[in-house]
């Protein structure tokens, strides 16, 4: 699922695997957002760099080909975006399915607000995006 907001594309992806490289192929700046399980407290907000998440043992499977594997492959193929920000929120291991635990729900608002501000700051630097992102900003706040 994707929305094109005049230069900013928001995509919701279902285990894209190696296709992440194709999806960001023409993007100047990518913010990749995902749930994280690192052992931190549920709701913890993470900022990663590419080197933080690569280097893991990669399963050579289609279903197990996650973000770390895609980033490693992109490095090998020189297909990383010029600017890539990795943002994550610590999930609650005790809460499966689509429901958010109380801790993650409580952190979600500020997590979304931070990303919205990052996008608006980026858009503010580019006059062609400024007017559209201002009018669309409520999308991110919902």
């Amino acid at each position, binding site marked *: 699922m994707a929305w094109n907001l005049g230069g900013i594309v928001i995509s919701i992806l279902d*285990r894209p*695997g*190696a*296709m992440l490289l194709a999806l960001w192929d023409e993007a100047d700046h990518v913010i990749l957002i995902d749930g994280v399980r690192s052992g931190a407290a549920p709701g913890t907000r993470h900022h990663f760099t590419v080197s933080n998440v690569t280097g893991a043992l*990669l399963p*050579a499977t289609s*279903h197990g*080909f996650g973000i770390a594997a895609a980033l490693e*492959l992109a490095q090998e193929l020189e297909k990383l975006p010029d600017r890539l920000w990795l943002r994550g929120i610590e999930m609650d291991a005790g809460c499966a399915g689509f429901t958010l635990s109380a801790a993650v729900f409580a952190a979600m608002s500020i997590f979304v607000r931070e990303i919205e501000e990052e996008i608006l700051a980026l858009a503010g630097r580019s006059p062609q995006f400024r007017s559209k992102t201002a009018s669309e900003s409520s999308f991110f706040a919902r």
Partner: protein
Amino acid sequence: MTEKRQIPIQVPVLARVEGEGTLELHMRNGVIEDLRLRIFEPPRMFEKLLEGRDYTEVPDMVARICGICPVAYQMSAVHAIENLFGVQPGPWVRDMRRVFYCGEWIQSHSLHIHLLAAPDFLGFASITELARQHADEVRRGLRLQALGNEIIRLLGARSVHPVGARIGGFHHAPARAQVDALRGKLQAALPEAEALVRWTAALNLPTEEQEFTVVSLRHPQEYPMNEGRIVSNHGLDISADQFESRFVEHQEAHSTALHCLHDGKPYLVGPLARLNLNLDRLPAPVRNLADSLGIQFPSRNMYHSIVARAIEIVVAMREAIRLLEGYVEPSTPYTSVTPRAGTGYGCTEAPRGLLWHRYDVDDAGIVRGARIVPPTSQNQARIEEDLRLSLHALGVRQGDAALRRRGEMVIRNYDPCISCATHFLDLRVRELTHA
């Protein structure tokens, strides 16, 4: 004296056959006495989930069975239900369904060739290692896979679990401009797909040959995808509604995955089976390409499956280009249907082989019974047979690592939905050196 060796391998998660696979070898004096591929697949009860549902819900529900081949599940389902309702959706729907299927073949085959199979034949552990030395080839593979996904999105709105298909046709017809743009991309990428065929044929593939039965659809004129009779290299020629008289699934105590046998024996479905049985249905340029490879098709070398997959990518790209030429938006992208009670049968060619569906529907259009026989179930017994022959040919005195490596290669070569699990085989070798 009994010697037992164990090699534990990490286990991931996969759809349809989530969990771990275990290859068990029982040897006596260096001879394989028993071999079992255990699949610990939690039953997903999809057939049961469909009971009580309206027929209109079926295409979207079955698309959820597989993230890699959802189109195949949708196509077998719509054909089965239309077969029951007596619906003829017309040439536009027929053509676009074939295009839809082309997209799935292109993306699924590209994924398997590059992510799963090629590293085996070039001595790498993963696509990332492969990319280090074969970057251009991996980039080409990703471009082709992305093109396949784009075709699926054109008609299905999204490439994973698409939602565009319905009984009677499609919910939405793509715009002419969108179709023309995609057709141009396919045309431009065709030489890359042809180069991929030559690349796979030049791989240093094992040369071992085996005797096996091949089963696929066969159409009077076309390379088979959505339509055709079920045929084999041993004279089988039946319609989809006769499938259950010659193919029987059964439960093996060692696996939760069902085994399907044809007249009581293992058989092969998938790209090599299709190609072996439908060489004369290849478009002429593709046949010329296949003939130029130095490989004798029909082939009894299972490792030629990777070449067959690449050839089918070219088939699919040429078909999509042909069918999208002169595209005209229809007045309506579907035919209205009226449900009626009875049983409908559908059989299409998923990327990894024959996919058979049967639905029992009442006169209100409610599903009362469903049965789905996926290609992995059909190939399961053949995989075990291949493992037995291949490991014996390799030499069971080989170390565990070599046996495991070859076992995984054999299994992956079938592109089963258990591909993912097979990287995580827990190989158990039990060797008896005295009677």
